[in-house]
């Protein structure tokens, strides 16, 4: 047994199994994620990286591979890769090398992609994925390396010719390679979401899958639990969470069917067709390119110093795992609530601003249930929230000092969400202040009791349940503004209960 297999066996508890005709099967998934580095300039040229623009708007002489042009490393991209490595709790390699990956394609103007092959900038790390059952899947990171993106071929612009758009040519990517530690399509998307959360916390990738800032190649194989790893197929360039789930489920089923029919899996590269919901072979291992990797002689090896790396480490923000632990420990939140709040840095920051100096659990409840619920309904993000953290905090203060009942607070929140007004203003303008003046409440109670002598008798005869009815009537009489707790207490006093 290899070390990998021993780890694998230990690691395997809790994988989701797929039933086949011959018994249960386990899916083994490893992912290669291409994350575009958040940087204004490309990896080896000064050209801008803005999404959109007219084709070939953002192309320098280097990106177009004009004769005699040379790459010069963008130090900021290096810093971003190191920051990401640190966020993935990974080894940072102080010595790494850029290699050329040679192949011909019109959208690859140099005829080679500058990448890192033997000596990547980041080594082994890990991503901890929270599973819905409350468990955690630790997905080991094999490596992270820097590389250039290619351009884009446009085949639909001319009846007989293809066009090439080099705007993306040379844009900096981080390829983040995981070990085959993922065990289901759901875990795969959870892994990707967690990875995206980390990258967004770090500010090293915007994680936008629609714009292609994050793309995944998925390695899928199946096996009977406890047996050694099966032959894998790689599904290329899947660019949405939904497609990832569909592609994995289809591919696993396809492989199981082949194996159960007595066939065998051939290692190959496959494409997912979202229209048909299936994967199909792109090229087999035998036809695979010989990329003739060799160190790029135009670039010196990348040498970093430990103090420089330490400096970046010191500037790292609190990451989701640490933040979640703190929310649980310091605020007493449930793991679920904590997870929800830390999923986006902006949400966590928002929550902390609301919770500061207030009851953290009530704050969490309001942010998750009321605010998220309302935002979800109108399809807005926390950054676009019409209610600021300060305003929501003020609302909670009004609730805490009993100016508002929770029912009233919900009403006020709805108005805040619609108008963006401060809660104090809404309370004053609309006279929504909770009545805690016992004189006014007593007058209302007396009035209700006087109007319903029969019910008063029933309570006096021992029908305690009717007390609730009285509370309701009093609340109605005060247009909901009476403090229900005070109403209850005073009623009990009247009835000597």
């Amino acid at each position: 047994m290899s070390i990998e297999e021993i780890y694998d066996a230990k690691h395997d508890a809790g994988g989701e199994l797929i039933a086949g005709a011959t018994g249960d099967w386990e899916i083994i998934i490893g992912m290669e994620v291409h994350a575009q580095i958040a940087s204004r300039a490309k990896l080896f040229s000064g050209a801008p990286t803005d999404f959109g623009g007219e084709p070939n708007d953002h192309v320098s002489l280097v990106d177009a591979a004009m004769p005699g042009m040379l790459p010069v490393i963008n130090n900021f991209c290096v810093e971003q890769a190191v920051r990401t490595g640190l966020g993935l709790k990974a080894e940072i390699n102080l010595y790494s090398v850029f290699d050329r990956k040679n192949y011909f394609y019109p959208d690859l103007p140099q005829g080679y992609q500058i990448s890192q092959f033997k000596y990547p900038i980041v080594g082994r790390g890990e991503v901890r994925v929270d599973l819905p059952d409350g468990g955690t899947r630790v997905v080991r990171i094999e490596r992270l390396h820097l590389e250039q993106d290619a351009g884009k071929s446009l085949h639909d612009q001319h009846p007989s010719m293809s066009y090439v758009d080099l705007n993306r040519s040379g844009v900096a990517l981080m390829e983040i390679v995981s070990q085959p530690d993922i065990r289901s399509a759901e875990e795969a998307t959870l892994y990707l979401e967690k990875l995206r959360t980390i990258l967004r916390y770090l500010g090293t990738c915007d994680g936008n899958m629609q714009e292609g800032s994050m793309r995944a190649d998925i390695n899928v194989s199946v096996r009977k639990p406890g047996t050694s790893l099966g032959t894998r197929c790689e599904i290329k360039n899947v660019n949405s969470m939904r497609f990832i789930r569909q592609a994995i489920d289809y591919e696993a089923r396809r492989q199981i069917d082949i194996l159960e029919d007595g066939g065998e899996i051939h290692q190959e590269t496959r494409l997912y067709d979202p229209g048909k919901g299936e994967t199909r072979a792109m090229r087999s291992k035998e036809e695979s390119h010989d990329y003739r990797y060799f160190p790029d002689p135009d670039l010196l090896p990348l040498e970093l110093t430990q103090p420089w790396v330490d400096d970046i480490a010191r500037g790292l923000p609190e990451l989701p795992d640490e933040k979640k632990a703190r929310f649980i420990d310091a605020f007493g939140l449930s793991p679920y609530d904590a997870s929800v709040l830390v999923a986006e840095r902006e949400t966590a920051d928002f929550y902390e601003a609301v919770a500061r100096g207030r009851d953290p659990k009530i704050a969490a409840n309001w942010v998750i249930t009321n605010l998220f619920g309302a935002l979800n309904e109108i399809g807005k993000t926390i950054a676009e929230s019409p209610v600021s953290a300060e305003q929501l905090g003020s609302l909670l203060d009004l609730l805490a000092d009993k100016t508002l009942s929770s029912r009233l607070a919900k009403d006020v929140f709805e108005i805040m969400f619609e108008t963006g007004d401060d809660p104090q203003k809404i309370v004053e303008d609309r006279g929504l202040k909770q009545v805690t003046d016992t004189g006014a409440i007593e007058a209302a109670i007396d009035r209700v009791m006087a109007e319903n002598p029969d019910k008063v008798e029933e309570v006096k005869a021992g029908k305690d349940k009717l007390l609730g009815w009285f509370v309701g009537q009093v609340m109605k009489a005060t247009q909901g503004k009476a403090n229900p707790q005070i109403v209850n207490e005073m009623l009990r006093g009247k009835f000597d209960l």
Partner: protein
Amino acid sequence: MSDLIELDLAAARDGLRAKEFSAVELTEAYLAEMARGEALNCFITQVPERAVEMARASDGRLADGTAGMLEGIPLGIKDLFCTKDVLTTAASHILDGFTPAYESTVSANLWGAGAVLLGKLNLDEFAMGSSNETSYYGGVVNPWRRKDDDAPLVPGGSSGGSAAAVAARLCLAATGTDTGGSIRQPGALTGTVGMKPTYGRCSRWGIVAFASSLDQAGPMTRSVRDAAILLQAMAGHDTMDSTSVDRPVPDYSAALTGDIRGLRVGIPAEYRVDGMPPEIEKLWQAGQQWLRDGGAELIDINLPHTKYALPAYYIVAPAEASSNLARYDGVKYGLRMPGKDLIEMYENTRAEGFGAEVKRRILIGTYVLSAGYYDAYYLRAQRVRTLIAEDFRAAYDKVDVILTPTTPGPAFAIGARTDDPISMYLNDVFTVPANLAGLPGISVPAGLSESGLPLGLQLIGRAFDEETLFRAAGVLEQAAGFAARPQTWWKD
């Protein structure tokens, strides 16, 4: 007017500053020589109008006292340097019609110093060759001929157009590039000075790449002093070339003190190769004596891995070339030969666009980088390279500079070696090690062969110690007193 072309760069510079003649006059004198020198096929592109315009601007700066270091000096530029708005071919069919929108750093430095562009000089296709016979634009003819023999000879390569143009006085000086000897070998074969600086001394930005880890630009001139002056203007750090080195450029001319007393000169045993012609051995001995007479100390040294240099070079250089030349695919610029699909377009374009030698090297390079062969060839060649660099490092503990012949023989007849690549490659046996180790080297014309052809001696220096190299080369040049000139048969 015609005696203007007899002035070397240093003298022409002084004459221009003293207003003895104008830059336009000097430039027109060379344009006239270029017109008479067509038979040599030195130039791929001539830009006479632009040259006169640049010279006129130089005269303006000479008049108002803003003259640069090379003000009004008419130069030829090897057609491997990209020149803004001037056709740049690398002597290849595949770059048909390619006119860059940018200027190489080295040539930009020259224009910034006031130099005048006469035209773009012929070379071996993509600088791959030792005879200038692989050019798509036809071979360059060496101005030198054997005594009593009219057979046309090669000028060496790949900077053959540069060497021949300097030797025939078609330009005052020229730029070359040297990947395995492409400056020094044609220098030796044409009786001119060819200097390859330390790797990283001149920017490679804007020079069409052959083998990136070996390519280095350098001056090709009539004298050691001219080479020092020209390099002064070419060299310097460039942030656009990651392999360019950030060190100040010293005053190279000031290094030409003529004093080499106490200089330790290494004589490497391994350069005494089998079958070396006696006249080369004799010249080498003479060179040693000249330096000894100047007060230098001669020390026998060993560079034990020398014999592996050529094989290692013919792995590393083609490997890098195979990748560097992938960009010539018919998609973006230059030649495109249509095909029924993409692959056929690639095949047709590259089949038509590249010559036989370039194809041979692309094939060798592709092969040595292939899965299964990489370790045996490329990786091993890189290890050899490290050992060769180590040899030199050890030698420079004992000596300051190393003296060797530049080439195993004089210029040969056009066509004599085109069917035998190996014998062609052997031309570079003495020059290649300096490229593999990244060291500066210079070839100084030192004598004539029995057949009346120029021969050169090479000095190899420590990395970034071009000053010592120039100083020793100056003494060698002085002592050799090489004054022979080719018959000007091309003017007839």
